[in-house]
């Protein structure tokens, strides 16, 4: 082996080890907390608004359109994204590192395609006809779960658990939404439907994007505090 070949071989070793050793948490616990609480508040507001509209009465609001519902959730996504960016900027300044760190770039490369496809598919589904918001919510949850699982090579174990939980919850939600008298599920049959698909959609969003993120945030916060305790030992 020539010295050049050995140098190339050693650089390959360095590169592959550096990539393997990169651990990037795409969702920090403060972002998960913030996004989770925002999702719970928004889904509760939209749920009770829809419930009031269904109940009728002189002061009842009108039923929400799928378009307006999508806009509400896109705004929530943007607010959470801005919050997360502020945290990343603060961390990069504190650690004197780049905003677009190699970890962030690798995470974005994994996250963006499934989220983009899921976002477009879900919106297309919801806007195609009335009463399809719940299907859109289930698609969003599934694709978000897939996006998190796409970061598996650089993600800590908690992100994998969140990804799998969301993917399975999304699949269950989609089957629930899809099944009706005409499409019973094998062994399970069909489920009782709520009064409006919009109620189901808000329930799916609140549970998956709200409660799941809150639980994840609590666990990661507890783990990171434990790791900072020198007596607790490992990273």
């Amino acid at each position, binding site marked *: 082996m020539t010295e*050049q070949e050995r*140098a190339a071989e*050693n650089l390959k*070793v*360095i590169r592959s*080890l550096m990539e*393997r050793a990169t651990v990037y948490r795409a969702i920090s616990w403060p972002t998960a907390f913030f996004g989770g609480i925002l999702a719970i508040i928004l889904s509760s507001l939209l749920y009770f608004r829809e419930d009031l509209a269904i109940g009728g009465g002189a002061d009842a609001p009108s039923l929400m359109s799928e378009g307006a519902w999508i806009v509400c959730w896109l705004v929530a996504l943007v607010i959470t994204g801005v919050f997360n960016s502020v945290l990343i900027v603060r961390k990069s300044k504190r650690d004197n590192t780049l905003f677009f760190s190699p970890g962030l770039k690798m995470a974005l490369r994994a996250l963006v395609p499934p989220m983009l496809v899921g976002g477009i598919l879900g919106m297309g589904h919801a806007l195609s006809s009335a009463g399809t918001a719940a299907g859109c919510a289930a698609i969003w949850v599934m694709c978000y779960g897939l996006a998190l699982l796409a970061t598996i090579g650089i993600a800590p174990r908690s992100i994998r658990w969140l990804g799998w939980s969301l993917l399975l919850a999304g699949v269950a939600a989609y089957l629930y939404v899809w099944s009706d008298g005409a499409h019973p599920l094998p062994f399970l049959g069909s489920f009782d439907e709520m009064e409006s698909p919009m109620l189901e959609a808000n329930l799916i969003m609140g549970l998956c994007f709200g409660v799941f993120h809150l639980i994840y945030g609590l666990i990661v916060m507890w783990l990171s505090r434990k790791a900072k305790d020198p*007596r607790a030992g*490992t*990273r």
Partner: protein
Amino acid sequence: MIDFSKLDKVIHEKGRLSIMTLLASRKDAWPFQDLKSELQMSDGNLITHLRTLAKSGYVESEKIEGEGRPQTHYGLTEAGRVAFEGYLKVLEEILDLGR
């Protein structure tokens, strides 16, 4: 003309290079068990390489006592970081020579 003798002989060995790379990849120190599982090395092999690197002043260790078994954490010293960066530079020069 590249002076191949500039290559740090302590680092220019696959096992020790792998250890140095992992230690350089993060700011935090690495627990012995994490290094072992990441590099798939035996305890004896890993400890021998770590001792060689420590002898050259490239690696420092700290024993952390906790509720469970005590753990030894390893990190790069400033001299180790400089040596690793210097080694990378020489590798790049060698590869440029080959083009």
